[in-house]
């Protein structure tokens, strides 16, 4: 058992470190932006008015204790941090509890003296440990600016509870289906349903009881930094424990590698997209691309539908008016100003997609599947080139889809933002997206094992830098490292053409470097 624990700890520790640091950084950014944007008591109290805005209520929840830093962090960012830790728990749990079996590696462990139920327990313990580390990081990050140890502790515990809950649900899913992809898919679907249930709950006062059905809703009931309803923590514990019990009971009824729901047997061959390596790359990727498009479009749509409401509340706020003056915005600009701000976040997410897409090329190499193609009359340049074309088209598709989703969200709330402006705002992020995509290609050529880690780390650090640099009066050259800092506020302002061209030039150069380096190096496994 302890050997299995050590193995799983090794497999997950890097992800846990990234997760904990990411959450802590997110909390700090939220806290800093709060202090900057709402410097006085009056502006903070006005935030409670968001409780009357249906769109804001549905996404972020009803504001509680938003006159405190901690309460604001929990309200404004809580749902997003829960989503991040939830996604991590789903991915990691499905990997340890199903991926290891799917790959056959679990047979090595299963052949040892450790019973299967203990391997499941070990996996869940490791995921729980990761959640606890993340919760502690969140606690540490929020306790200093808020000075409220009890609130901070409850907030941290709610994050832990949410992660544990998602891990337990994914543990059940991992017993039901035979592949990690499907187990993670079920876990993600559970997360999505939970989020929608909470939106329904917060859409009107007489539906608030629905929130008890969703793990997302439990934080609303817990109200850290406000009412501090400690008893709600028991819900996380009881439900998670029950789900773990179900998972272990189900596991006892199946063989190693088998699942309770199977679709074995003959499958009709679909000769679709097998003709050329590039078409085949599309076949491998379209499902994931679709998921990214739907997921990000959902986010953009909601942000689009929030723009007007948020703009109106903020425009009445004298403190915020000063902030807008600083950015050269007038009252009329406030809604499209919101579009510009939100589109940068969409650009960040699409940058992550670009890094992931190049990482998928690396995965084909490290799993030694690429060898079947490259030992045939296919040059490495053509193979990689096909994937690059695919990555570029996917990114453009995501930009357009998100622009349109923002526009639709705005249109149904009469925000008065044109489709062209909405798409232009998201397209503003393209140079940054290409820059990080190019960085991923360079890493793929030069240090393939870092293909995803370096650009993803770069995206997160640069975004945080562009945010806290100006707030903390960092010297210009330091903040200027972040490509996000060089983006203009499109559609309020025109594109920053020079900066954009420079970034695209760098993206092109790093891509070329990556292609040349890939040509010269050895193929390497995992």
């Amino acid at each position, binding site marked *: 058992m302890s050997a299995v624990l050590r193995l799983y700890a090794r497999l997950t520790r890097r992800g846990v470190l990234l997760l904990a640091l990411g959450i802590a950084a997110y909390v700090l950014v939220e806290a800093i932006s709060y202090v900057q944007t709402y410097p006085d008591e009056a502006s903070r109290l006005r935030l409670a008015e968001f409780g009357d805005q249906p769109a804001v209520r549905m996404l972020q929840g009803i504001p509680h204790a938003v006159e405190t830093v901690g309460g604001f962090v929990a309200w404004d960012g809580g749902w997003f941090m829960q989503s991040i830790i939830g996604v991590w728990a789903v991915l990691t749990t499905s990997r340890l509890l199903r991926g290891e079996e799917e790959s056959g590696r679990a047979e090595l462990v299963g052949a040892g003296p450790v019973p299967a139920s203990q391997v499941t327990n070990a996996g869940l313990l490791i995921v729980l440990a990761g959640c606890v580390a993340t919760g502690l990081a969140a606690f540490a990050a929020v306790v200093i600016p808020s000075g409220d140890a009890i609130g901070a502790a409850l907030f941290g515990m709610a994050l832990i509870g949410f992660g544990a809950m998602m891990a337990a649900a994914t543990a059940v899913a991992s017993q039901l289906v*035979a592949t990690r992809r499907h187990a993670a898919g079920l876990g993600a679907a559970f997360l999505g349903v939970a989020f929608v249930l909470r939106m329904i709950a917060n859409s009107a006062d007489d539906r608030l009881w629905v929130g008890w059905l969703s793990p997302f809703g439990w934080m609303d009931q817990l109200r850290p930094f406000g009412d501090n309803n400690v008893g709600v923590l028991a819900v996380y514990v009881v439900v998670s424990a029950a789900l773990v019990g179900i998972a272990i009971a189900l596991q006892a009824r199946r063989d190693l590698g088998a699942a309770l729901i199977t679709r074995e*047997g003959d499958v009709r061959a679909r000769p679709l997209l097998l003709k050329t390596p590039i078409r085949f790359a599309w076949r491998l990727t379209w499902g994931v691309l679709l998921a990214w498009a739907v997921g990000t479009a959902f986010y953009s749509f909601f942000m689009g539908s929030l723009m007007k409401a948020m703009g109106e509340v903020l425009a009445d706020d004298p403190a915020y008016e000063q902030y807008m003056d600083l950015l050269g915005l007038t009252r009329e600009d406030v809604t499209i100003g919101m579009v510009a701000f939100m589109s940068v976040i969409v650009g960040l997410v699409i940058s992550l997609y670009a890094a992931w897409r190049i990482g998928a090329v690396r995965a084909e190499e490290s799993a030694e*599947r690429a*060898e079947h193609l490259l*030992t*045939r*009359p*296919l*040059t490495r340049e053509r193979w990689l080139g096909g994937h690059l074309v695919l990555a570029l088209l996917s990114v453009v598709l995501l930009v357009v889809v998100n622009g349109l989703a923002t526009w639709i969200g705005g249109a149904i709330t009469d925000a008065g933002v044109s489709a062209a402006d909405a798409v232009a705002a998201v397209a503003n992020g393209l140079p940054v997206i290409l820059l990080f995509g190019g960085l991923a290609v360079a890493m793929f050529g030069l240090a393939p094992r870092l293909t995803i880690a370096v650009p993803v780390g770069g995206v997160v650090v640069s975004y945080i830098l562009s945010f806290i640099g100006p707030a903390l009066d960092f010297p210009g050259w330091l903040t200027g490292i972040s490509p996000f800092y060089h983006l203009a506020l499109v559609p309020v302002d025109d594109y920053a053409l020079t900066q954009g061209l420079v970034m695209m030039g760098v993206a092109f150069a790093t891509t070329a470097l990556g292609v040349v380096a890939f040509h010269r190096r050895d193929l390497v496994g995992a």
Partner: protein
Amino acid sequence: MGEPAIRTKGLTKHFGDVVALDGLTLEVQQGEIFGFLGPNGAGKSTTIRLLLSLIRPTAGEAWLMGIPIADVKQAHPHVTYVPGDVALWPQLTGTETLDLLGNISGNVDAAFREELVERLQLDPSKRVRSYSKGNRQKIALVAAFMTRPDVLLLDEPTAGLDPLMEEIFQSLAREATARGQTVFLSSHILDEVEDLCSKVAILREGHLVEVATLDQLQELDTTIFDIQLESEGVLPSFDDVDGVISADANADGVRVTVKGSPAPLLQVLSTLPVRQLRTHTPSLEEIFLSYY
């Protein structure tokens, strides 16, 4: 005979400080089944991966059918490859995998592909995910043979196959060379090499230690004596007898390997109470072991 199917000149590969292959110079003629022997880590896979440009040589050159190996577009239409551990796309079916690989290779004889699937008793309608190691290997074998390439580079291709399928693999390889194709077979299954290969190269720690036909290897004037003495006889040490390269006591007596003339050994034996004396030429396994 024309161009050699495979030619290497001083082919060398370093991984950091580790020398995986050191100055391999080798020619494999067309129509041969060439056995490439060596224990794990001797550099067999490294050689094949170099020939396929999956990894780049530190030094040296190589040609496939006279074409420099780096010219993938020209060289690869002549070759196919079967790795020892076949990783495929789990979400595809066997048929889809063969379609994909065939489309990228070109030149697939559809009827021959069907024949191969049938002979190897492969069920291609299943998803690759549900295939065993042996079945994945069959897919790779069908894909390698179905284009009738000039050169087949096979890296321990039968590790997951049962003895019946091993038999079928051997007849496929023989039929291929009968058509003039060349089979380069890396293996440590010595029986397979002994049954199949006309010529053998032995590799040790990145160095080529021997290239010879199987007949030549077995005629390398080495003889093995299995000697049993009457119970009262005491076994002397044979180590200082001229020509003896090894003497190992076993349950029944002693096995003595002699290089060159056995006369000095026979002289010693004539003074002993020998009950039984058997001699034979060494098997490939015995030759192989004598190199390590």
